[in-house]
């Protein structure tokens, strides 16, 4: 007995595309070859052809009335808003929200810096290392050594100092490392001042935007919005 799927290897979609002349040439040739030998598929194709012809012959209906638009039905077509227009469309409320968000982000960055990796944090961790370094020699969570620390360690290694000495530095070296005279501390300080400046500006912007918003709200009932 022959496998029916072998007898009808083409899909209904192929028959439909064939009717529209949209089947690729090679597949079209295969389909025609199959149709020549397969009466059920020929009948299916003829059925689909009758459907398509029937649909194409459906009467076209005249519009029962004019759908022309009257001026009172329409407003001017919506213009896709430019970026600046979109931004101003939010008004003072949007500006206040943006300023508040900026303020929060800046304060968050400032706090994060203090907790996670700022100069103060370095000092705190170094103090910890001084206190516990002898008992916990690895202290792998300590921050990467500064260039000054690296050069000091290298110098000790070159001088033949044992590694354990570098891990547990002498108390006399520590104060010098904790307050390095280099530019890193000054840069950190300057950065902090810039950050504070931005925070202050964002705070002022927030207050101004809120004030404008309150004035607008107070003026709204009397004005017609124009």
């Amino acid at each position, binding site marked *: 007995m022959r496998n029916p799927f072998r007898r009808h290897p083409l899909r209904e979609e192929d028959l439909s595309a064939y009717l529209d002349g949209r089947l690729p040439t090679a597949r079209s040739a295969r389909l025609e070859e199959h149709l020549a030998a397969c009466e059920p598929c020929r009948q299916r194709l003829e059925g689909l052809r009758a459907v398509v012809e029937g*649909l194409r012959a459906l009467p076209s209906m005249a519009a029962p009335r004019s*759908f022309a638009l009257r001026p009172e039905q329409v407003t001017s077509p919506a213009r896709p808003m430019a970026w600046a227009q979109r931004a101003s469309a939010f008004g003072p409320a949007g500006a206040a929200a943006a300023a508040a968000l900026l303020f929060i982000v800046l304060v968050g960055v400032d706090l994060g810096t203090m907790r996670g990796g700022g100069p103060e944090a370095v000092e705190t961790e170094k103090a910890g290392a001084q206190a516990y370094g002898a008992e916990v020699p690895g202290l792998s969570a300590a921050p990467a050594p500064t260039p000054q620390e690296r050069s000091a360690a290298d110098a000790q290694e070159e001088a033949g100092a044992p590694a354990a000495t570098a891990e547990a530095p002498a108390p006399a070296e520590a104060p010098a490392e904790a307050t390095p005279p280099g530019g890193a501390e000054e840069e950190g300080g300057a950065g902090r001042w810039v950050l504070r400046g931005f925070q202050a500006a964002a705070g002022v912007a927030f207050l101004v935007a809120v004030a404008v918003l309150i004035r607008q709200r107070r003026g709204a009932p009397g004005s017609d919005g124009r």
Partner: protein
Amino acid sequence: MQATAPEDHRLVTLSQEGDLAAFNSLVDAYQGQVYNLCWRMLGFREAAEDATQEAFLAAYSNIRRFRGPSFRAWLLRIAANAATDELRRRRRRPQVPLEASVGGRDTALDLPDSSAGPEEWALRREQGRLLQAALLALPADQRLAVVLSDVQGLSYEEVGEAMGSSLGTVKSRISRGRARLRRYLLEKGELLPPGQRPTQ
């Protein structure tokens, strides 16, 4: 794909500048196609009129967003959306059952065709009634694909643009819609003439 004709392009440009008279020239040119699409999707006149009016209002207020290539496909997409919205609205609060109106007094199939004799006209009317009932029995996505392709005569590419679908999806929907119509007519289609009668 059929690009926007030069005259349409000029009218679209004027409409984008707010020229309502120019837009109404486009309405005159396309209202037949839009109304036909809505009617085939919805099945009766009142709903089709509402959807057609909504489609032109939406087209005018969004005309500045039209970027081409085919104004017709863009407009028919808006019309298809309007018809789908109207279909949903009427299903939520049914006033006239859609299927009940097929073949009723408000169907355009009652329009006399002066070129046909009385017998042929009666036959066509019956075929049209049956086909419209079969169309309304299709899922909405297949109905839209078949109407755009076989009733409105859009190419696969234009149907894809009007439906916002890929070419593969368009082919599949048209094929499945036609297959369903064939099965529907096989069950009810004794009225088709022998040359057009679907067979198994």
